[in-house]
């Protein structure tokens, strides 16, 4: 589904990604771990199409087509979704209106009619119940005054509404208490299928206890320096990142 080949990216001439190779197939869950500043969030943003980053080398293929030249919205229409580490507050736009616009614009791009209002309402009700989101919350301005946990839950609500092929969760666990973590993780698990894939970016093992990865990758200084199965995450939890750094530097 996603194939990243020798990806280099920089921001203001500072190289951040220095040759990433990664292949993700439908039905798989990949975890990307690594110390702060290793380039995890940059990788997520570059896949989603953030224009602040310049791709200087390499390729990103999504379903065998290059997406590097595509605008963020076009990537979204193809089925790429990024759950933000720090979701932006947008005063004056309600969660519901935002979702309606996002869904109908995506449908338009795919040559479909607007979703009928009753169908939309039903979907909103189902997905918000799944994530234990209060109905009142949906008429509030998007992310404005939301607690850290509410923001993250709202990200997963959007994920559930948009049903993407590839979901990238950028530190979705930060700012979540144990209960919220469980709700969010079970939401993601319910959405998982043979047709879609998930990238979980995290510092910690605890989210991976709930969303169990098939592969774990460790990023360090802009590269993936180690890959393995879910046991690698446990090893990192126990030993920290220092041994990885030593291995790389050796």
């Amino acid at each position, binding site marked *: 589904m996603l194939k990243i080949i020798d990806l280099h990216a920089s921001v203001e001439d500072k190289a951040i990604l220095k040759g990433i190779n990664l292949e993700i197939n439908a039905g798989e869950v990949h975890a990307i771990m690594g110390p702060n500043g290793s380039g995890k969030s940059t990788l997520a943003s570059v896949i*989603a199409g953030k224009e602040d980053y310049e791709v200087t080398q390499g390729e990103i293929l999504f379903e065998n087509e290059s997406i590097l030249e595509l605008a*963020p*919205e076009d990537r979204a229409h193809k089925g790429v979704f990024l759950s*933000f580490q720090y979701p932006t*507050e*947008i005063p004056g736009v309600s969660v519901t209106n935002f979702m309606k616009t996002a*869904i109908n*614009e995506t449908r338009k791009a795919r040559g479909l009619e607007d979703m009928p209002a009753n169908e939309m309402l039903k979907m909103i009700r189902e997905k918000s119940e799944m994530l234990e989101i209060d109905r009142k919350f949906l008429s509030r*301005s998007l992310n404005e005054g939301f607690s850290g946990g509410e923001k993250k839950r709202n990200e997963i609500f959007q994920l559930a509404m*948009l049903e993407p092929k590839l979901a990238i969760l950028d530190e979705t666990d930060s700012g979540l208490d144990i209960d919220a973590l469980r709700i969010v993780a079970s939401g993601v698990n319910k959405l998982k299928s043979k047709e879609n894939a998930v990238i979980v970016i995290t510092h910690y093992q605890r989210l991976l206890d709930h969303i169990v990865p098939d592969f774990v990758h460790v990023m360090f200084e802009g590269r993936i320096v180690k890959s393995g199965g879910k046991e690698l995450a446990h090893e990192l939890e126990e030993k920290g990142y220092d041994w990885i750094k030593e291995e790389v530097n050796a």
Partner: protein
Amino acid sequence: MELKEKLIASFMAFENLVDIDSPVHDLRSEAIKEFETLGFPSRRDEAWKYTSLKSILKHDYSVFPKSENHIDYNDIKKYFIHDIDTYKIVFIDGKYSSHLSETTHDGVDVCLMSSALSNPKYRAIIENYFNKVASKDGLSSLNTAFSQEGAYIHIPKNKSVAKPIQIVHFSTGNEAALMLQPRNLIVVDENSHVQIIERHQSLTENPVLTNSVTEIFADKRAIVDYYKIQNDNENASLIDSTFINQKQESCATVHTFSFGGKLTRNNLNFYQNGERIDSTLKGTTIIGDKQHVDHNTLVHHIEPNCESHQDYKGIFDDNSTGVFNGKVLVDRKAQKTNAFQANNNILLSDKASINTKPQLEIFADDVKCSHGCTIGQLDESAMFYMRSRGIPEKEAKALLMYAFSNNVLSSVKIPEIKQRITNIIAKKLGVNIGFDL
């Protein structure tokens, strides 16, 4: 001949044309002298530092309205709020158009300034109110000197006017260049309520300069809701001076929607002559090209326990320029005043600019006054966030701008106006909005 000289020279002929026995004859004569002394404002005047009239005063304007030009209602229907029943006072090239208007004398007077000035029945009101709150600056004096036509609205005690009133001025290009001097008088007596919509619309590419003066008197507990829709073409300029005198517990709100015109200057002045008065000034400006919109506001708190709320939002694209100069004056006597002012702006292009200047002069010691102004670009992180959810750039921009101007629209009480403004904004941004506010 310079425009100033031409106007002064034309005054005698004008006075002979209109009724010399009118109670305002002396006022007109004084006013033309005032204009002769003061002339047009220039950038040397502090209040006009960022707005130059030079380019619009250079035309050889015709200053006398000629005979009424016929316009078919269907051609101009779109300029009216036409999906609700309203009274209409309509002028074409400065002349009253009876076939487009719907006036009334049934319990309330919604009619013409020219008839109010000549009919003895209205003499008392004219003597008590005409030119009593308008300032004596050059432009207002010029308007007073040539005041002849406009709207005359008198709402007696305890009346709520059933329908909104639309005051619409059209110019047709009959003249190579036309100057208009509409004059409105609105008197709202105790416990009465009126809703007014005002619009100036040029139907031609020929230059038009409108120098409009409106005086509003809101008596005790009166409610006045005033909407100014400014969406004119690129050859039409408007200088609007509105003066509102409020008495105790009255509530006056003016919304100014500035979406177009070559140069638009709004002088909006509130005088609070009583206690527990509420004054609200709201504005949304969305312009581009080389357009210029200048909001110059004054709220004068004279008595204790009053409130004022000012909220102006501006979005400027291309080479457009904006000015906000908001003055709040709190007299020593006006304790417990609550005055709020905000001016927020977004610049969409490197060449667009806004000059914003809050001016607070407070002589009382127990007051709550706040002001804030911001100038920024569209929030890039919000743009990326929305686009990553599949909302295209244009729609994301529109959504952000809607959100930005939402505050101002939320206080519009007539749903059809809200809808109309929403449509104008959507059209300006070139998008189809699939959501409602």
